[in-house]
């Protein structure tokens, strides 16, 4: 089952602190949405409001077209996967997963059957009789996922579910989450502060900062054509060059560049700088380089602007020598207007 979620002008205040400023967001049924932002940006608050654990100070949330303002968490078509798993330690995995069905009055045989199906979905069908403390972190996370999905929610809320796992396991769980989401078709709303995780799993990423939505789009859009400096920086490393509009191009410390005239900050990802590309940045000297496995990370100083440092990720095959002077090119240049502060 699945449903769309409409968030209308949701504002939330804690005493004197405003956690969310009039947030509007439309999420289609079956979408995998990731709320991304640094801690304190309001992403978890928004998730709690969708789940019904917090009532917004203003605005409302519609799930499947129904206003949820007066609906308690237990009656909402949502379930949550909590960051600390929140499994019931005194129950076996099967009883944990079957708990939601038991609360809905499903008979013992039927709910156990469903629980085993769900455990099978997350690859733990042979451990139904174990207790949660006998499991590893990754396995507990799977049980929490199975438990939340067992009641066929329309919308599944995931609150930094992979935060406590080590990097390798996290990457593996991301793939599994994505696969499970495709197979069940439920709308997933996932909160994280890890932009790589967001890009790995999301249909759409919602970048949040200080209680506002900075950018909402596909991973490609958010990464390659960011709308704000904040989301540009948050999505990954970025070279920033101040530019001003000048005739047909822009003036920069590197000289006149043939870009659409606009005043602001020219943003270039390190991997979009190279020895060939759309726009020439002029000659630059390699100061230092380090091999990172998938690329060489190089620090360049443009000859036209000795104070500026540009970071470029060059492909493996190329062995740059420090001191070498090369012509740098850029692809995917984005100029962002100064932040309206």
């Amino acid at each position: 089952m699945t449903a769309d979620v409409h968030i209308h002008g949701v504002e939330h205040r804690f005493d004197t602190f405003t956690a969310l400023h009039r947030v509007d967001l439309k999420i289609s049924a079956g979408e995998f949405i990731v709320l991304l932002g640094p801690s304190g940006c309001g992403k978890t608050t928004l998730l709690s409001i969708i789940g019904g654990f917090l009532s917004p100070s203003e605005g409302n949330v519609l799930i499947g077209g129904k206003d949820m303002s007066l609906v308690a968490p237990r009656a909402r078509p949502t379930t949550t996967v909590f960051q600390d798993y929140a499994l019931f330690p005194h129950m076996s995995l099967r009883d944990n997963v079957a708990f939601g069905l038991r609360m809905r009055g499903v008979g013992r045989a039927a709910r156990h059957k469903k629980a085993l199906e769900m455990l099978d979905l997350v690859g733990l069908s042979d451990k139904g009789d174990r207790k949660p403390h006998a499991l590893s972190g990754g396995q507990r996370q799977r049980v929490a996922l199975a438990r939340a999905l067992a009641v066929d929610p329309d919308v599944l809320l995931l609150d930094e579910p992979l935060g406590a796992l080590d990097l390798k396991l996290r990457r593996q769980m991301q793939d599994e989450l994505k696969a499970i989401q495709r197979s069940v078709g439920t709308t997933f709303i996932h909160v994280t502060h890890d932009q790589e995780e967001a890009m790995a799993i999301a249909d759409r990423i919602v970048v949040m900062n200080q209680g506002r939505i900075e950018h909402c789009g596909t991973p490609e859009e958010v990464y390659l054509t960011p709308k704000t400096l904040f989301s540009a920086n948050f999505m990954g490393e970025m070279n920033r060059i101040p530019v001003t509009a000048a005739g047909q191009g822009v003036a920069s410390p590197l000289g006149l560049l043939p870009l659409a005239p606009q005043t602001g900050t020219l943003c270039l990802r390190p991997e979009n700088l190279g020895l060939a590309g759309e726009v020439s940045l002029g000659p630059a000297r390699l100061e230092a380089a380090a091999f990172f496995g998938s690329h060489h990370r190089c620090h360049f100083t443009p000859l036209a602007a000795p104070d500026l440092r540009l970071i470029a990720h060059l492909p493996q095959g190329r062995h740059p020598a420090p001191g070498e002077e090369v012509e740098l090119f850029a692809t995917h240049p984005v100029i962002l207007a100064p932040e309206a502060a």
Partner: protein
Amino acid sequence: MRALSWAYLIAMLGFILLPVAMLVIFSFQDGRLPVPPLKGVTLEWYGKVLSDRALMEALVNSLLVAFVSALTALVLGFLAASGLARVVLPGSAWMRGALIAPMTVSYLIVALGLLQMFGQVGIRPSLLATGIGHVVINLPLCFAITYAAIGEHQRSALKAARDLGAREFQVLWFVAAPMLAPALAAAFFLAFTFSWDEFIIAFLLTRFDVTLPVEIWSMLRSGLSPATNAVGSLVFLVSLVILVALELTLFRKGAK
């Protein structure tokens, strides 16, 4: 240094346990007075005590009051703790303070207050009145133990239960109570022993049916006898059994 610390340990244990040991030893005294020297060993006094009808009735009364009052205090304390742990109300800190406050009031004051209040509303001194008194003194204890046991882990499990569709009583019954079982058992047994030993409230709030400490007190008024030692030993035995049971079930589990 090592010998000194052993000596200190033995002296300390002796200081604590010697009175109890004397009580138990002289309950077997073959003579009229429970004082040294030990003239011989007999079970006569135990036989006498166990066939004493008033004493046995008091013992049953005590068990009944202890059980019912401990259970009532536990249920009320558990509900209060889960409620206050769940939501932050204006004045939550004051409510917690008010719930724990009776712990700081002497039993005598509590008993006097209850005596006057029961006089007003027409509850006669009885086992019921004593039981209510014991709930008053044990509720803060049960609340404090349960409240302290509710951590972030429990909170999020309770939240998860609500999220999965549990009603509030189902959350308490299926999730909160089992998760807090060790704390609840500890609170119950502590409340039980406190009620079982309690004298002042029981003395002021009972009349015809009395609890065991009150009965022992009236025995003492007619002078020392190995019989009082025998009763005392039996009371001690009950407390000991509860303690050992606690040790074997709860504390060992917690240490694992």
